[in-house]
């Protein structure tokens, strides 16, 4: 009975054990000579929904499989509730996983699927019955308890898979691409529903996804992974508004990046806003950033929805450029307007701007029309240029 074993150990007094449900300490995994996961350290609070977000091959799935016990780390340690699980096989860890394919046992009914884990713990039959009913009610699948997985729709299978992984009350719930097998419409609905169920149960959850919308909808915190390393960890809003690297900025949403050199007025004692000279923008950029660690080469990052597009060409001192409309993409909810700028270096640079349908009609935008772009100083995010 692995779960009860783990619980007896939890009671040993350790401050850290009370704080974090999961600690990943300097974990690396090498396949032959390639590092799939490289020196990853993460601490995840109790009851938190944490998303590992990254493209394919970034190591997120390998990391998840190490938590479940299907892969052994080459180095580092994994602690659940303060206890190292490094040497426990998957069937002894207080961890349950919802697989991308759901992995429901096709030869068992919904009920038998959910009861499977409890049976392995030799729970008395009556208790199993009660617990199965409880979790099936939680996911609203009680009506289908006698069906086989093959007779359920994708969304229903997902609910059963979730019920099965919650049945044993795991210390840690793992979700592998939870929406991967659903169509887009169902995805939106299930994202919120799944997050609500997980929150109502209060289980700590680590999910893996390549879909940023999914991560932002469901997770309390997100870690962006690339090439086996964690690039940035933070709340969805923090990651979107303040990306700390070019990679994160480009990975989440769309963004306009301009190479720039930041200059700080040191005499003002850090109170004056930072002024930037951009090789790719024919104007002076002013930002609210006062942290002088950005001094020197950096990127100016501007989200397309934070740039305003005007047809009047009244010039402003800074944060103002003039360009011509190169292309307009109609996306239903809004339009993405590509504006072509002439850079001081004599090249052209395309800037993406989001324009609402209403504004597009009011301004009757057309190709090759001259427009002006402007933005507020607080919209400017600085990203330190990586040391080449």
């Amino acid at each position, binding site marked *: 009975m692995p779960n009860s074993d783990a619980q007896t150990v939890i009671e040993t007094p350790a401050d850290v054990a009370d704080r974090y449900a999961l600690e990943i300490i300097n974990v690396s995994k090498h396949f032959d000579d390639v590092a799939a996961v490289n020196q990853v350290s993460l601490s995840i609070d109790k009851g938190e929904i944490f998303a590992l977000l990254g493209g394919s091959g970034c190591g997120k799935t390998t990391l998840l499989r190490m938590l479940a016990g299907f892969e052994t780390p080459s180095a580092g340690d994994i602690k659940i509730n303060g206890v190292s699980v490094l040497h426990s096989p998957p069937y002894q860890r207080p961890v349950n996983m919802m697989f991308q394919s759901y992995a429901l*046992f096709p030869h068992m009914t919904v009920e038998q699927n959910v009861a*499977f884990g409890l049976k*392995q713990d030799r729970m008395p039959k009556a208790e199993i019955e009660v617990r199965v009913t409880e979790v099936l009610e939680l996911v609203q699948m009680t009506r289908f308890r006698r069906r086989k997985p093959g007779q359920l729709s994708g969304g229903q299978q997902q609910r059963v898979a979730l019920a099965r992984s919650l049945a044993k009350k795991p210390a840690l719930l793992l979700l592998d691409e939870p929406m991967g097998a659903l*169509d887009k419409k169902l995805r939106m609905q299930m994202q919120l529903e799944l997050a609500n169920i997980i929150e109502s149960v209060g289980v700590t959850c680590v999910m893996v996804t390549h879909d940023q919308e999914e991560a932002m909808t469901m997770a309390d915190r997100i870690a962006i992974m690339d090439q086996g390393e964690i690039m940035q960890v933070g709340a969805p809003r923090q990651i979107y508004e303040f990306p700390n690297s070019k990679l994160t900025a480009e990975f989440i949403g769309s963004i306009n990046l301009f190479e720039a050199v930041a200059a700080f007025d040191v005499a003002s004692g850090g109170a004056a806003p930072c002024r930037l000279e951009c090789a790719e923008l024919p104007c002076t950029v002013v930002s609210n950033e006062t942290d002088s660690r950005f001094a020197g080469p950096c990127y100016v990052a501007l989200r397309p929805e934070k740039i305003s597009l005007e047809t009047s060409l009244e010039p402003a001192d800074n944060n103002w450029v003039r360009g011509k409309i190169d292309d307009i993409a109609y996306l239903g909810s809004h339009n993405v307007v590509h504006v072509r700028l002439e850079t001081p270096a004599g090249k052209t640079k395309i800037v993406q701007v989001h324009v609402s349908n209403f504004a597009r009609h009011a301004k009757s935008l057309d190709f090759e029309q001259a427009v002006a772009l402007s933005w507020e100083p607080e919209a400017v995010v600085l990203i330190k240029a990586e040391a080449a």
Partner: protein
Amino acid sequence: MRAARVMLVAGLVFLYFPLLVLIIYSFNESRLVTIWTEFSVKWYIELLQDEQLMGAFFLSLQIACATAFMAVLLGTIAAYVLVNFGRFPGQTLFSSMIVAPLVMPEVITGLSLLLLFVGLSELLGWPASRGAMTIWIAHVTFSVAFVTIIISSRLREMDGSLEEAAMDLGATPLKVFFVITLPLIMPALVSGWLLAFTLSLDDLVIASFVSGPGASTLPMVIYSSVRLGVSPKINALATIFVGMILVGSFLVWWTMQRWQVYATDKKAAEG
């Protein structure tokens, strides 16, 4: 469309007309296999009284059953190792040696096994004489190849995360095999069993090589009796066989239908 239908009918007639003729003539009164006189079941009665034929029939059934069970057991283990153990030293050699009997001419398999048994009995005194036991060993040797291929393809098709999910829920690897893997590959075990059974029942060449005095399988007896002229008893025996095969394949089809319900649409799940 019309031409296709004609071709289909022609093909079916070509395949099944001889069988039909054989069944009809098994109820013929005449001694001559080609001339119809009147309806009679006397060849069936004579068949039941023919100790040599009946003995060979039961020996063949025994060998075929024993072969099928052994081949499924060994084939399952071999397939499981091949599919689930990843790369191991000598894996390529192992997998090609397992399928080698598929492409080996029967005469060569038979001859080499005969040489092996003769050599063994000279060296170790075992097997003391050749007979049902040596035929069984020989049949297992070549039918394991077929069974392994059937089972390993089924194992490969299986969603590997099913086994991982069972382990994740607390089942030990051994338990996972018996509670998850085995039920899911059962259809492959059944078809493997049937194939091994048929191969063994059917085999004449290898059995002739490795058999000894007193152990004649059905194909051996039929073959030698046909050389002396076809007896209508053989027709009767063949009719019984066809009947058994019909009943057997219906039962298999019926069980498979029930198993179909279990089989998930793997593609839908992967989407």
